[in-house]
């Protein structure tokens, strides 16, 4: 069972994690982007955390919806609408709920994933956050199918997201800003896949 207060802890943890990794994500974005991904993520989740504190949400759906709205309004760039969509679509799966079970977690994350996929139209292998999302959601589903609990699901998802993140290194980008570099985008880890892996790790650490 995942409670509202765990979800809030997750958001708080995301603020902490992105603030800690602000320079690292920005550095990754310097190599194949415009040197702002860490700044964007930290700005967005510190605002999201503040929003949770200022107006404590009544349920998980409301919490995720408020996070989504905050990200959309404060992040900008590609990651604002993309992560904003993740949380928006996720919120729809659990409106009014104060806790969710394994099935609810799977729906929450796979709907979030479907949202970002539709929004950004990227495929696996395009060197974007999808390269972390796709294997993570698959692993999460498999873990539940084979009887895993929340902890096992998020452990599997995180490991898969991190492997997906690492797998972006040799790719040539076909979506997002890195795609302008063509062949030169090879050999660099995608910033968005990295922030997605961090998102799963934070979920594992707070929701399990």
């Amino acid at each position, binding site marked *: 069972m995942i409670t509202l207060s765990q979800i809030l802890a997750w958001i708080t943890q995301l603020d902490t994690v992105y603030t800690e990794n602000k320079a690292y994500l*920005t550095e990754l974005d*310097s*190599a*194949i*982007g*415009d*040197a*702002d991904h860490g*700044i*964007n993520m930290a*700005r967005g989740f510190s605002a999201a955390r503040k929003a949770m504190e200022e107006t404590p949400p009544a349920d998980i759906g409301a919490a995720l919806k408020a996070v989504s709205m905050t990200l*959309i*309004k*404060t*992040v*900008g*760039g*590609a*990651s*604002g*609408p*993309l992560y904003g969509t993740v949380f928006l679509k996720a919120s729809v799966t659990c409106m009014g709920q104060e806790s969710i079970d394994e099935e609810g977690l799977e729906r929450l994350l796979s709907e979030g994933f479907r949202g970002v996929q539709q*929004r*950004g139209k990227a495929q696996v292998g*395009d060197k974007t956050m999808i390269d972390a999302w796709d294997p993570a959601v698959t692993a999460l589903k498999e873990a539940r199918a084979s009887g895993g609990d929340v902890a096992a699901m998020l452990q599997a998802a995180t490991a898969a997201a991190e492997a997906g993140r690492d797998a972006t290194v040799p790719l040539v980008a*076909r*979506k*997002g*800003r890195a*795609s*302008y*570099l*063509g062949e*030169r985008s090879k050999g660099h880890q995608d910033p968005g896949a990295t922030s997605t892996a961090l998102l799963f790790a934070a979920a594992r650490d707070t929701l399990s």
Partner: protein
Amino acid sequence: MKKLINSPDDVVQESLRGMEAAHADILKVNYDPAYIVRADAPVKDKVGVISGGGSGHEPMHGGFVGRGMLDAACPGAVFTSPTPDQMEEATKAVSSGKGVLHIVKNYTGDVLNFETAADLCQAEGIEVEAVVVDDDVAVKDSLYTAGRRGVGTTVLMEKIVGAAAERGMSLKEVADLARKVNAQGRSMGMALTSCTVPSAGKPTFELGEGEIELGIGIHGEPGRERTSLKTARELVDYMGEAIFSDLPYKSGDDVIVMVNGMGGTPLIELYLLYAELERVAKARGITIKRRLVGNYITSLEMQGFSITALKCDNQMVQLWDDPVHTAGLRWGV
């Protein structure tokens, strides 16, 4: 990092304050959400024309707000697309019932955020058309990629389309004209140095003493190719060829061109580059009807330049010559 600022987080907001104070006759600034709007907005019976994008490209876009050009501009964080709430509020502020045109540069972030804004506006009954600028010949285009970046043609489009709106053309006419400008405009840029995003605190890339980046965009991102320092002549030959053979432009064509500095390039060099561009155009039988030489679409303090060429007809030249009264471009008033 050496910059003339107070703190990285306050750069955009504090710069907006200065803009507002310096140009009260032309524009007003709204801070939450942030947008710059014509002092006399909404202008009755006129299609609204708005644009937006990350900050750090000044004078674009805020410096092009005013009579004969943009009705409003939405500044994002440095090099980061603004958010839909900014675009929505700006759209409402300039809407006078004839619809609003969104000029969007082709970056994933800009496109997605403007899409959301357009949905929000349409839900409130404001007719919105969006035109996406994608003119950068340095980017190899394909069905499977994000396509070309939007760069210099944006400036020429904002001038021409702004004049069209000022003349009273309909939203459809203005949007069609914008698409035509995009279809006929091409750009390419290069950098001698990188730039430093204030919050990042260090240069986005490092270039050696004898190195340059060819085919850069406007966000301090590396270019398509790192190569050795070249003369102005070699650079304009190379970039001119890439641009003129892309459309392609033919002998006898008329063009409006821009030789644009990336923010840290002195005017003495830009004029020298313009002389080279005249030479290249002449050799191809292309006539430069109008031109801009200066820093118009920049990447903070980056040293480098870009060339934009827009194949033009009489109507475009006339619209170009129409009065414009903005902080960054001014004539006829």
